[in-house]
């Protein structure tokens, strides 16, 4: 997101008009809300919201049948948990008045002073509440992304504690660094249009750490741990892509040419990355796979995220192609070689793709697309690449250390991992007492006696 002053400029142009029309001065307050921009960001927030259920399906289809519900539940509960946390404390930590360039202070606790009028520091033409809720959706999806790494083996209570702590201690400060007024990375000039570092590097690296701390699933490497429902995964990928239009274009925070440009490069990079993944896999293993296409488009979406508001369509093709190929290699070659069990490849796709995207922004950014941005290496400004590197390194560090510490602390109070027999039985039954697909008469209602009077 870039805090552009175009709107302000436009308002300035309007001043003389308003002076001519003195009686209209009562207008001075309200007209600052633009109905088009407000609609755009509200509906973009809804689009970003649907990404998390999309992720639930994307992930849910990739696990074994006996873990489908527990995997879906992770994303679903995070929607609920973070929605409440954000309103109470998360938003003020991330976007509240700066405290030492590191975190927001508590002025906006419980959304105090976050109201129906715009906050010009963040977005001058939409109600402050709209900006707040748009940002909430980013906090949700980020925490949800991590869950792919520890799928099929983490205990539900430990997951709850981890997620709540992670979003508060890792996400909120990181968002402040990059996007908060006076955050240190923002001050440094790091470009991250829609969350390459804040969302993808942070979740990807945290996923890697979580996978290492929890250890491999039983049977990893000896049994086939196959996706149980690939159409579900494709549907999830489609909802992710769909929502990503709101994610990236909405990050322009106004319905303007920049939003249009972000929309176009988002779609282009996703498409190119899916093609690249499929083609590389085709050459490598002899078959173009559907799971490859679905994974590839996500890799492309990840990579274009930080760059979406700064690059033109042709570089977007390139960013996508590289993302598809590199993430494929991370997932198919690097991971088995290193032997960690990042179950659904959060690190391979989001960590690697996000890092590539953040650096690519330092290569391909151009002020021709966004005067409020900066030029990248290929437009003559090598320094930007360096700044991007700093942003990447800082995100890696915070995510890795934060996740490790949180998991260790949580493990003091509550076992992280399901015992072997529960893992064997599947987390759906052991953690939630439910069966994803109960298609046969399997038992009887307990306590028959309870059905009582009834009537008519």
């Amino acid at each position, binding site marked *: 997101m870039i805090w552009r002053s175009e709107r302000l400029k436009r308002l300035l142009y309007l001043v003389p008009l308003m002076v001519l029309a003195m009686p209209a001065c009562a207008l001075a307050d309200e007209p600052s809300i633009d109905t088009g921009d407000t609609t755009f960001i509200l509906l973009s927030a809804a689009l970003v919201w649907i990404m998390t259920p999309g992720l639930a399906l994307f992930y849910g289809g990739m696990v074994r049948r006996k873990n489908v519900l527990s995997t879906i539940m992770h994303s679903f509960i995070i929607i609920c948990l973070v929605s409440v946390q954000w309103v109470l404390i998360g938003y003020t930590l991330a976007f509240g008045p700066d405290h030492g360039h590191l975190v927001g202070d508590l002025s906006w606790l419980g959304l105090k002073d976050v109201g129906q009028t715009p906050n010009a520091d963040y977005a001058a033409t939409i109600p402050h509440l709209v900006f707040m809720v748009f940002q909430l959706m980013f906090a949700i999806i980020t925490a949800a992304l991590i869950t792919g790494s520890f799928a099929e083996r983490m205990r539900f209570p430990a997951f709850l504690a981890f997620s709540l702590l992670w979003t508060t201690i890792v996400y909120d400060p990181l968002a402040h660094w990059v996007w908060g007024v006076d955050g240190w990375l923002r001050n440094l000039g790091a470009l991250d249009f829609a969350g390459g570092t804040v969302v993808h590097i942070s979740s990807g690296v945290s996923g890697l750490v979580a996978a290492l701390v929890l250890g491999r699933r039983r049977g990893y490497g000896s049994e*086939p741990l*196959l996706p149980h429902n690939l159409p579900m995964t494709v549907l999830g990928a489609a909802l992710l892509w769909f929502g990503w239009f709101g994610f990236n274009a909405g990050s322009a925070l106004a319905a303007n040419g920049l939003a249009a440009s972000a929309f176009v490069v988002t779609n282009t990079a996703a498409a190119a990355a899916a093609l690249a993944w499929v083609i590389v*896999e085709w050459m490598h*293993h002899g078959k173009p*796979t559907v799971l*490859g296409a679905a994974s590839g488009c996500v890799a492309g979406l990840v990579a274009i995220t930080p760059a979406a508001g700064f690059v033109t369509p042709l570089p977007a093709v390139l960013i996508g192609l590289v993302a598809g190929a590199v993430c494929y290699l991370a*997932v198919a*070659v690097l991971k*088995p070689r290193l032997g960690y069990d990042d179950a659904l*490849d959060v690190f391979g796709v989001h960590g690697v793709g996000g890092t590539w995207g953040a650096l690519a922004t330092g290569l391909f950014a151009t002020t021709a697309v966004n005067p409020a941005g900066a030029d990248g290496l290929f437009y003559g400004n090598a320094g930007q690449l360096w700044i991007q590197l700093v942003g990447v390194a800082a995100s890696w560090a915070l995510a890795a250390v934060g996740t490790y510490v949180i998991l260790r602390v949580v493990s003091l109070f509550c076992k992280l991992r399901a015992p072997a027999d529960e893992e064997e039985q599947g987390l759906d039954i052991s953690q939630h007492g439910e069966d994803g697909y109960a298609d046969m008469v399997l038992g009887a209602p307990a306590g028959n006696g309870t059905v009582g009077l009834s009537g008519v």
Partner: protein
Amino acid sequence: MTKIECILRPGRLEEVKDALGKFGIHGMTVSQVLGCGLQKGRTEVYRGREYSINLLPKVKVEIVVRDDQVNEIVKVISEAARTGEIGDGKIFTYRIDNAIRIRTGEQGDDAI
């Protein structure tokens, strides 16, 4: 009575049913199974990792018949199910002690 248990390619079920129907046999019980044998499995690739799948989809057909019909029926089924390629499946036969039609309580040959 004898039970004829056949493991078939899924794609031949229709033909086998037709052939049995022409022969006058309509009663049967069918289920989905997975088979492993001489037939080569296949490779599936998920996120760049290869898995060799050696359990292949088959259909099991169970028919209980009078002992004197067994040979003919086995022939009928064999012919309808054969493609000549590895993986056509097997027929197993074994004698059973009794058959009961639940609806009427009839027993033995009358029940089938």
